[in-house]
């Protein structure tokens, strides 16, 4: 439905209408808008301040990653997966490598599994810090963005020292990890854990306790638990509505069962609960990192994998708890060195569906808050 079709579909002014009855104002929160976290276009049908209807137009960042996969080798496709959710490249990589390992049936050595857990949890911290900075910025407070990005800088330095790149890390290979730990790795990671805890409490004074923040986020964008299930929403948004489901607990992978951590749950399913869930998740990630670093076993970091990988014909669906939700890979292989079909189950794409339902009836300012709390990344929505 191109623009003019959309505008024609608006109700004509019936004869009974007087000039004072406000016809709906169609506002275009266009692809390049300061608070749509990327190239998302939201067509708002407004009655004054209230949002009557909302429609998302996506596809501006569509690069056709699933088509590219069909002409790359299994190992050659791994760097492309970093570009999906570019704020959490490590967990995309982990998901893809584990899916291929399950397809081929490779057993990853224990040390590589622990190393992968440490790096994924660090990546979850950095993704949550980006979310915190931009979400609070959309609601008006300018400073937390800089505190969150300053803390994130430490994590990016560890990524750079470990695998050579800060954002598109391409840190794992099929069968394990590419590099072993650099000498000061353990010291850096523990320093990050110790530095971050007081900083998270600082956010409590600056934001959580702030009455303006509470008024802007309490019962805004509410969604009930069974709506979440109907929309197949996963991740912090689901846990914000009180559903106790996390892929790391439900279907443990990469030796997550060795670590004990609890899953924060919200109660009312509004923006404030999701905020608390993510802040608590950052604390839990630090707990996991500490246990993983303490229990890092010795041994090889990569299993024996043939140079040109030809997995047996078959298909497999493997999902990982990415910072945004359940990131799944459905791989179909026909026995050749190139994947036959790679389907990425993007959590942001499916969570974004609920935006129309959550934003209905709210105000324009709430639409911005809800986009922030859904924590969508357009690289993953458009693929």
């Amino acid at each position, binding site marked *: 439905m191109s623009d003019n079709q959309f505008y024609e579909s608006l109700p004509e002014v019936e004869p009974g209408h007087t000039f004072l009855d406000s016809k709906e104002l169609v506002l275009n929160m266009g692809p390049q808008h300061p608070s749509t976290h990327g190239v998302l276009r939201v067509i708002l049908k407004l009655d004054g301040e209230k949002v009557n209807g909302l429609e998302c137009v996506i596809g501006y960042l569509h690069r056709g990653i699933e088509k590219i996969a069909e002409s790359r080798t299994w*190992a*050659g496709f791994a*760097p492309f997966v970093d570009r999906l959710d570019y704020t959490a490249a490590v967990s995309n990589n982990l998901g893809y490598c584990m899916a291929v390992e399950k397809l081929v049936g490779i057993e990853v050595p224990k040390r590589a599994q622990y190393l992968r857990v440490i790096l994924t949890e660090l990546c979850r911290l950095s993704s949550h810090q980006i979310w915190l900075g931009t979400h609070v910025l959309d609601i008006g407070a300018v400073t937390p963005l800089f505190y969150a990005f300053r803390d994130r800088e430490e994590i990016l330095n560890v990524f750079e020292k470990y695998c*050579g790149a800060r954002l598109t890390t391409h840190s794992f290979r099929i069968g394990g990890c590419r590099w072993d730990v*650099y000498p000061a790795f353990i010291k850096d990671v523990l320093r990050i854990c110790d530095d971050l805890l007081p900083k998270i409490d600082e956010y409590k*004074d600056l*934001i959580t306790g*702030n*009455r*303006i923040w509470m008024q802007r986020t309490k019962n805004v964008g509410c969604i009930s638990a069974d709506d979440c299930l109907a929309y197949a929403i996963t991740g912090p948004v689901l846990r914000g509505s009180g559903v106790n489901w996390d892929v790391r607990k439900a279907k443990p992978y990469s030796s997550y069962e060795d670590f004990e951590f609890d899953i924060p749950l919200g109660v009312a399913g509004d923006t404030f609960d999701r905020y608390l869930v993510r802040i608590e998740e950052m604390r839990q990630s630090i707990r996991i990192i500490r246990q993983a670093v303490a229990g890092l076993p010795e041994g090889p970091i990569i299993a024996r994998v043939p140079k040109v990988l030809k997995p047996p014909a078959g298909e497999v669906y493997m999902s990982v708890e990415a910072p945004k939700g359940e990131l799944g890979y459905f791989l179909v292989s026909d026995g050749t060195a190139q994947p036959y079909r790679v389907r990425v189950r993007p959590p942001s794409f499916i969570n974004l569906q609920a935006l129309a339902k959550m934003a209905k009836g709210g105000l324009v300012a709430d639409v911005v808050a809800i986009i922030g709390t859904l924590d969508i990344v357009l690289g993953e929505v458009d693929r």
Partner: protein
Amino acid sequence: MKFIEGLKKIFLIDLFKGLFVTFRHQDPNDLVTEQYPLERPEISDRYRGQPRLVKDENGKMLCTACGACALACPDKLIKVGSMRDPETKKKVLTEFDYDMGRCMFCGLCEEACNTGSLKLSRDYEIALYSRDGLELDRKQLEDGTSRKVYDK
């Protein structure tokens, strides 16, 4: 407890707490800005920057023109030209060009090279004003391209 909450609400305690957090952050040694041309960032030695063909100590080429890197590269950016040396019957590298314009620095070529001659160096200042300077030929790969470094 309700009464204390009420008092806190009246005297805007939560707002003042927020104010003191921002005030506390003002002391100079907290500032993190790095003024780039003067203070240069320190780069880790595993950094994946501009590709380079490495020579061993006495200047002999390590590359045996086997083409493993050209195969491993997902975007087919590397073209290796070689001719067979009549008496030693071994391949000798004639020309090697690397299109850095489309490279995503994933490091798969460095991994595939078994003689360790193709390395992604720690050079991160590779910006240019025009796109054609990005197709690196063999000579540029060996002794590196010197980009103009600004000091202010």
